[in-house]
């Protein structure tokens, strides 16, 4: 194998680099595994809750005897478990693993990162428990009550301390683009989270705060960390540098500037000043710039190497996620236009879009990251490569069924809703077949997660057949 000077003009000689990577991985092993174990558990909990919430549309009298299991609470528990449990903990785990490698310095105070993972879990258990018991702040994406939020603020602070100090002790002069995204995300998230949770907002102004936060939790946190991950893994697996440094720079700063102003497109047509909505629509359309820059960078790096997808599970997941990122972002820009939003606002169309983003884009990239990182943490190859194929196809078909059904159903719902001659009951009835399909999509995703979690468990217990070669490498040998 040839060694490509991958990321830096100031890369050390290969033997030194290998030694530093081992040192970096050793420093991050325990905290990253703790974040990953937690993320896998939250993925199972969150997707099971999601399926229960979805099935309630088919069986509205099922589990109706207690407030605990009512749709409004289960749905909320699902969102918090997948967004703050699965996606956030997995993304932080990846960032903690990646940054020491990229700045050529071992993780500073791994114990602080461990404590952050423990605190984060405590926040989720108490917060989701509170929501199910009926104690909520009553704002979408911000339901977990104010006092419990303090726990995650402390955990986040410990995390940021460990990561920022690691970067401060870097041995590189140059920052790779993944480090920009990860660092910025760790600056952004505490700012938006603390600001939005301050108990000073009310009335329609609070709706603006709510959606400024809600969209930034996606844009400046989940998206930023997912892009950091993809920017690391695509060139790493291909052994080929990213196409254009300049494009990644444009993509980063345009995302920082425009994404942060997208939020109020959730209030189009609502009782807030029109100029405010127009600002957010403009920023949403301008998102085409960072998205196109990132897409060109990812996809032209892949160009001519698509054969690699057959023998790298990591790349299969990450490339699927990167392609979906392009699609979901362009869809989001279109959805912010008043003419489109008039139809799609208040419908299941939006729910389909949200899942395409957090699942099709972020989660697929995360799955790819797990397949790359975990063997390096536990010094064991994935024992059952066939399970990775099952995971991939179940997850991809699950999100496809989910997205297509809600997109069609949501559009029909919106079009009928706009026609005052269609009674509301007929609007609801028309959506029902699509909601059945949504449950099917959700069940496929849950099945994918059970396969993944079982394989992950085998992996960390170092069970199953011992394999000398990475999963799927037999495809390369055959070629």
């Amino acid at each position, binding site marked *: 194998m040839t060694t490509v000077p991958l990321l830096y003009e100031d890369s050390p000689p290969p033997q030194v680099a290998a030694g530093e990577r081992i040192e970096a991985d050793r420093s991050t092993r325990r905290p990253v595994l703790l974040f990953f174990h937690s993320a896998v558990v939250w993925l199972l909990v969150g997707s099971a809750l999601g399926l229960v919430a979805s099935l309630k549309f088919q069986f509205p009298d099922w589990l109706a005897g207690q407030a605990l299991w009512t749709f409004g609470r289960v749905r909320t528990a699902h969102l918090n478990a997948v967004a703050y449990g699965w996606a956030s903990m997995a993304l932080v785990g990846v960032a903690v693993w990646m940054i020491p490698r990229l700045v050529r310095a071992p993780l500073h105070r791994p114990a602080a990162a461990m404590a952050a993972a423990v605190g984060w879990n405590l926040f989720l258990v108490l917060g989701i428990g509170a929501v199910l018991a009926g104690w909520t*702040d009553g704002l979408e994406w911000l339901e977990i009550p104010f006092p419990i939020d303090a726990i995650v603020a402390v955990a986040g602070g410990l995390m940021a301390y460990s990561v920022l100090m690691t*970067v401060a002790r870097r041995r590189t002069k140059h*920052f790779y683009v993944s480090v920009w995204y990860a660092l910025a995300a760790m600056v952004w998230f505490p*700012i938006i989270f603390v600001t939005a949770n301050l108990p000073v907002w009310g009335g329609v102004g*609070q709706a603006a705060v709510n959606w*400024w936060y809600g969209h930034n939790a996606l844009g400046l946190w989940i998206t930023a960390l997912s892009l950091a991950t993809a920017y690391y893994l695509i060139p790493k697996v291909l052994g080929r540098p990213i196409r254009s440094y300049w494009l990644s720079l444009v993509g980063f700063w345009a995302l920082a500037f425009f994404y942060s102003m997208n939020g109020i497109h959730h209030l189009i*047509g609502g009782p807030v000043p029109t100029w405010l909505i127009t600002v957010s629509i403009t920023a949403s359309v301008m998102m085409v710039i960072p998205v196109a820059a990132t897409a060109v960078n990812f996809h032209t790096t892949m160009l001519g190497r698509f054969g690699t997808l057959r023998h790298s599970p990591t790349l299969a997941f990450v490339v699927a996620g990167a392609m979906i990122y392009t699609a979901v972002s362009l869809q989001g820009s279109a959805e912010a236009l008043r003419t489109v939003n*008039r139809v799609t606002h208040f419908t299941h169309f939006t729910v389909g879009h949200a899942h395409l983003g957090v699942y099709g884009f972020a989660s697929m990239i995360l799955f790819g990251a797990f397949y790359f990182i975990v063997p390096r943490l536990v010094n064991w190859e994935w024992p059952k490569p066939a399970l990775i194929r099952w995971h991939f196809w179940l997850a991809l078909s699950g999100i496809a069924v989910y997205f297509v059904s809600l997109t069609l159903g949501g559009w029909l719902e919106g079009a009928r809703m706009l026609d*005052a001659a269609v009674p509301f009951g007929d609007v609801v009835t028309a959506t029902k077949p699509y909601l059945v399909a949504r449950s099917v999509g959700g069940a496929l995703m849950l099945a994918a997660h059970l396969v993944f979690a079982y394989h992950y468990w085998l992996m960390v217990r170092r069970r199953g057949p011992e394999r000398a070669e990475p999963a799927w490498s037999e495809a390369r040998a055959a070629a």
Partner: protein
Amino acid sequence: MNRYLVIFLGAVATVTFAFVVLIGLPEVQLAGVPAPAGLAPYTASQAEGRALYTSLGCYYCHSQQVRTPSFGSDSARGWGRASEPEDYVYDRPHLLGTMRTGPDLMNIGVRQPSRDWHYLHLYQPRAVAPFSVMPSFRFLFVLKDQAEMGDEIVTTPPGLVPAGKVVVAGPKARALVDYLLALKRDYDPHAVAGGAP
């Protein structure tokens, strides 16, 4: 200045700029929006009902915002006039909502003023709207052999409850219906008590 500081300060600057534009400026613009004369603050019972509405997550499926006629069929469906910031002066948390899996409730108290209808609808939505996918909130009610003094009895169609039983609205159901009936934004939002509009 090194790259570390560029990223750090750049990140802080972009998010701060967004905060100033999207939150700071509207806060200034909307500061001191007067309470309309026709809108009363929530009573204790209505506030309790509102807290229950929030904790049960009703707002995930029901919006509380009526769009202008140029932007949808809201008013044509009888959901009321377009909402204004003044309508929300007493609302904490805001419950504008993002979904209309069920209809908008900004004026449900105007559209459906019957307590009895609300009780039955909450107890079993499909008893009044067969197409409905709304959860049953029967845990807010008590099934009794015989109603007692002061009980609010829910009128149920035959077959919904076992023979010889009556459904009585619990204190939470009463508060929730008090709140729903208070959702009446049929006043002039710009008419301020004792002053020029």
